[in-house]
């Protein structure tokens, strides 16, 4: 019994991290149509910097902010310097951002060395909850809490605020916005920055469920993130949340109960969902 509970909970905590990474990607893809394969590398960038700041200051909040800021900055530079003129050219976007995965990973190798960086856990969160034979870290509960708070907040912004309406309109009918005199450009830049910051923040707190930050994090994360975005539905917070949690819990439970099949599970899941529900779990139907 304790096995099931820990399995589901750890899957959920992992899922929340995936959600934070995927949410930003979903909107960048949905609103700007930009395929930023370096998004995972931004997670890594924020993680390395943020964790070092957190360890130096002893504050997870400062670390999270630092990670978010650095990732946001790198993302902002990436968009302004390179992606700005490539809005309709998705192949070029892929090539540029792919180049940045290599660049960012190698810079981090150069600066930080090749071994993984272990997560920062503030001493106040060092405790754990006993579930049967196991202890479950309070930090994971915090991560789940952050997810439980951020998801409705972002969802509210998406559905109930003017900026959210502008973003959704930008995804469905950008011409109408132009006719109404709303300039999408600053919105795009802001969304890209926000997505990158969210990714950096995810890296700082996500290092714990991921067992540390590695240089390969960029490449590992981006595939999972794209999968979550598509499985959940592009351009939808609730979709990203549903997709991420589904992915997280399924992988976790499969690892425990179907270990031989564990390696296949994420991909079977993707194929199955896409076959039966091509727009994703909670996606917006084709416009």
């Amino acid at each position, binding site marked *: 019994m304790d096995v099931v509970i820990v399995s589901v909970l750890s899957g959920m905590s*992992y899922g929340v991290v995936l959600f934070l990474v995927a949410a930003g990607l979903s909107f960048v893809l949905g609103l700007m149509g930009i395929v930023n394969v370096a998004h995972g590398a931004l997670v890594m960038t924020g993680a390395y910097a943020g964790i070092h700041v957190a360890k130096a200051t002893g504050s997870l909040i400062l670390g999270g902010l630092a990670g978010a800021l650095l990732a946001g900055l790198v993302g902002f530079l990436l968009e302004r310097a390179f992606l700005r*003129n490539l809005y309709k050219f998705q192949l070029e976007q892929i090539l540029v951002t792919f180049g940045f995965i290599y660049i960012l990973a190698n810079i981090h190798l150069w600066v930080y060395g090749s071994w993984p960086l272990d997560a920062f856990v503030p001493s106040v969160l060092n405790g754990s909850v006993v579930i049967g034979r196991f202890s479950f870290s309070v930090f994971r509960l915090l991560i789940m809490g952050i997810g439980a708070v951020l998801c409705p907040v972002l969802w509210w912004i998406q559905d109930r605020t003017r900026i959210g309406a502008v973003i959704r309109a930008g995804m469905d009918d950008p011409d109408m916005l132009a006719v109404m005199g709303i300039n999408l450009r600053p919105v795009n830049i802001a969304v890209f920055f926000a997505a990158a910051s969210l990714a950096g923040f995810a890296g700082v707190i996500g290092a714990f469920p991921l067992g540390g930050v590695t240089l390969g994090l960029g490449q590992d994360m981006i595939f999972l993130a794209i999968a979550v975005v598509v499985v959940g539905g592009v351009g939808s917070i609730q979709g990203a949340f549903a997709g991420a949690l589904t992915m997280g819990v399924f992988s976790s439970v499969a690892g425990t109960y179907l270990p031989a099949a564990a390696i296949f599970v994420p991909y079977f899941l993707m194929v199955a969902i896409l076959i039966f529900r091509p727009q994703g779990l909670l996606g917006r139907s084709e416009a």
Partner: protein
Amino acid sequence: MRQVSRLQILSLVVLAVFLASYASGPARAAEPIKIGGLFELTGFLNPIGKDAQQGAMIAIEQEGGKLMGRPLEFIVEDSATDPSTTMDKARKLVEVDKVKIIVGPIFGPCTTGLAGYGDKVQIPLISIAPLDDAVILQNKWSFSTPGTDTGMGYPMGVFAATKLGYRRVATLGSDFEAGHEFIGGFVQGFQENGGKIIQQQWSPPGSTNMMPFLIAVDKQADALCAWWPGAEGFSGFKQYTELKMKLPIMEPEDGGTLASPLVTKGLGEGAIGAYTAVLYSYLADKPGNKEFVAAYQKKYGVAPGPIAGCGYAAVKIALEGLKRAGLNSSSQKLRDVLMSLKMDSVRGPVDFQNRRVTSYTAPIVRIDQNYVPQIVAEYRTKIDIVGGKFVYSLEK
């Protein structure tokens, strides 16, 4: 052409500066004696590839730049943890640089692919980590300096059954061939001494989430025997620590991680009290070890981990082979010398006994509260080849 913005130009200039600052010419061909080194400097195995290279450099530096009166050149190339890149670099080392011997790399498929090439061009290949069993048996020019993976796990199994008194053990290994071999060796040693393996799990390669497997470990187990290479060891131990499982943990080989002074602390409290067999220990009292550790510590600021020690030992073996074969020796002579090579190393006695694999000493260490891997036992595994198969026993 589209307008190129100033910011784009600036970014290009910055990148070009990096490029310029790292351009250096390829090796000059002259009279020197050349040794080739292939290491995983990029790719997923790069933490331990770098360790190995660092250890190797110390061995080279200790020669003072000369070997038998001639300049000594150590040409290091990146294997990128990829067999075809390894082959490209190997061809360059052999055809262009004309090296006499090659050390490394570590990644199984790379060494297996390289072995065939070594046979073809008749250049001895000195491994850093154990070679695949099939390679040792079939490829005449590949030398497995730390024995075999299975032979590594064997003494740990014996130790677990006889000294730690475990009766029922569950295993959890990363699904690489090396994992199967290390754990296989453990299983052999354990079962030969009355133990019972009650469960075996294999985690997908590159997993960062070991939780599902850790919580699935059979309740009845006395202990967990786990094997995680390189970076995977981080997730494994961190999550084991987090779960506070009242289950002792041990490794048949530390994956280059658990006993590596640079990283042990980062694995968390769960590492304390863990046992593992190691390919090399910096605390072992072996000839030349104190000097090696001091030199390594001076250069890199930390004591050498197991794989760094392996890199050092491998180069030492290569150098010794070259010295004993003499100047201007043929490849065949070099190989013959290596086949019958007997020498001391920082790992203990090396003796190829004409089989290209050596019986070796496996220190068993236990991580103490200061994250130091203290040696608690030392076994010498004897490897015999009977009917094309390996047979393991312990020397007394």
